[in-house]
């Protein structure tokens, strides 16, 4: 069974800050990290590989500069992935999800015989548009989103979706796209053996020309016209002292706001 995981490398949102009054956002210097939910998808896929002998796990990452994602895919290889593909093109600098979806579809078709494509649910990392279910449509594969658990039996993936109100259990035939949501696990650390072994695993860099995806296809349907910091949520009031006094003052404040 061939499983493909797409890993996005994004600016670490925790370190993205705009000063009050700033109108320009430059994330060039912000350290890059793997998008949290993509990393969870990778861990989920590695667990499937652990339980299903013969699974080939391929990680894919798209970037304007292969060097920027090389360490990320190498780490994935060290964690247990079998093969890595980096798709490199300047157009990825600010492509929207429609563009990324088209490229991912082309990658899956070029790899061939893929049973499962997975990555994280759309997120908060600042991509122009969220990459979510679009690829499923392009591939004409069923899509199941917000997976918190996944198990493969034969040609079927059993998915538990953790959504508003509860957990939905769904069976879907492969090939399928499954996006990962609240998978409460910690991605494994690469072992020394894994890191050594990764050096011998295939890591290829493809261009859009290799995929027969033309730059014209990478269009934009909206454009960003401004950025601004949110209004400052500065420090509030600190109350210390004897618990009785602290409570009195706190409740007086909450009463003033009609919370009590």
């Amino acid at each position, binding site marked *: 069974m061939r499983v493909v995981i797409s890993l996005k490398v994004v600016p670490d949102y925790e370190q*993205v800050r705009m000063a009050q009054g700033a109108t320009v956002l430059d994330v060039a210097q912000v350290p890059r990290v793997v998008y949290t939910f993509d990393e969870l998808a990778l861990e989920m896929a590695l667990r499937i590989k652990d339980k299903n002998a013969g699974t080939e796990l391929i990680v894919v990452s798209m970037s304007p500069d292969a060097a920027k994602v090389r360490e990320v895919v190498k780490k994935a290889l060290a964690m247990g992935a079998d093969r890595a593909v980096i798709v490199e093109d300047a157009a990825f600098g600010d492509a929207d999800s429609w563009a990324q979806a088209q490229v991912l579809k082309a990658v899956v078709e070029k790899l061939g015989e893929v049973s499962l494509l997975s990555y994280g649910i759309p997120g908060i990392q600042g991509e122009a548009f969220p990459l979510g*279910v679009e690829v499923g449509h392009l591939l004409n594969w069923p899509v199941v989103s917000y997976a918190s658990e996944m198990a493969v039996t034969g040609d079927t993936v059993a998915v538990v979706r953790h959504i508003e109100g509860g957990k939905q259990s769904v069976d879907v035939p492969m090939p399928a796209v499954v996006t990962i949501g609240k998978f409460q696990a910690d991605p494994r650390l690469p072992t020394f053996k894994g890191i050594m072994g990764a050096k011998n695993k295939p890591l290829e860099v493809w261009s859009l020309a290799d995929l027969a995806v033309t730059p014209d296809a990478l269009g*934009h349907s909206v454009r960003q016209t401004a*950025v601004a910091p949110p209004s400052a949520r*500065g420090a509030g009031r600190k109350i210390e002292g004897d*618990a009785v006094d602290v409570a009195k003052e706190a*409740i007086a404040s909450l009463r003033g706001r009609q919370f*009590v």
Partner: protein
Amino acid sequence: MGMQNRILVLAELQDGAIQGVTLEMLGKARELANGRQATVDVVVLGANVTEQARGLGAYGADTVWVAESPALADYDAQAYAIALMQVIGRVEPTLFLCAATSQGRDLSGLVAARLGVGVAADINQIKDLGHAWEVVRPIFGGNVLSTLQSTPERCLIATVSLRAFEKAAADAGRACAVEAVAVDAITTRTAIKAFAAEVASGRLNLGDAEVVVAGGRGVGSAEKFAIIDDLGRALGAAVGASRAVTDAGWRPTNEQIGQTGVTVKPKLYVAAGISGAVQHWVGMKDAGYVVAINTDPEAPIMKTADLALVGDLFKVIPELIREIEAARGASV
């Protein structure tokens, strides 16, 4: 696809009931439509929804499109998308709004893929520029607000943050047209096996709660967490926990507030024994008023809380409860 001067709203249902966010989107859609002589269309998908759908006329819908079938009783991306695309093809909206929920994000994405456009996610503002739409949405975990403008000739698809807009007011005298959507040809490749509802008995739903109390690692143990429940009861609050607490098994994972847990947007949020790491903050940063209780005045949450109470939660909380009850007694 052509484009008409029509705004389409996808009704958000849970357990067969139309959710409040639908009225929020309707309110905004009506306001925008009035500004440009457009019509407001709403699409409702489900099993027994016609009566509820009809009721949306009172909230500003001009036409409600109902796709009603037992096959749509449970949410299924593929099946819902087929029904939805029929409506999209008939309405040809200039603006399509979905709730920023798992359903809304899926379906907006599936429609976007069919139309060849992207999706503006989690918007909390929208303006009509005449020739285009302008929206604002948070990016980088809310650390930046990004303004986007749509392409004039293309439909803008957006998912709307919950509680970003005011609910539409009801006008009982207002009626709407109801159009039935053909559902016979809907098939799906996914099989829904089960749904395990998570609203624990007697507990308020965290995601919707107006008041939330949460406990963190500082509480110390599963047994001691009872003090957080006590405060929750006193405030009429839903009770949540930080990831450290759910990881430790003191509370079930569905009570975790944070990036990989529930996002809450209450009017009042009380955090006890929580340090306030970013992953937690992301789950509650839109709270109206934040009160933090911690022995460490330098804990991240203490620096951004509206009210930072420095002290031992096991001493402070019983006093808070005493004060709340005294206040209640005084006003009775």
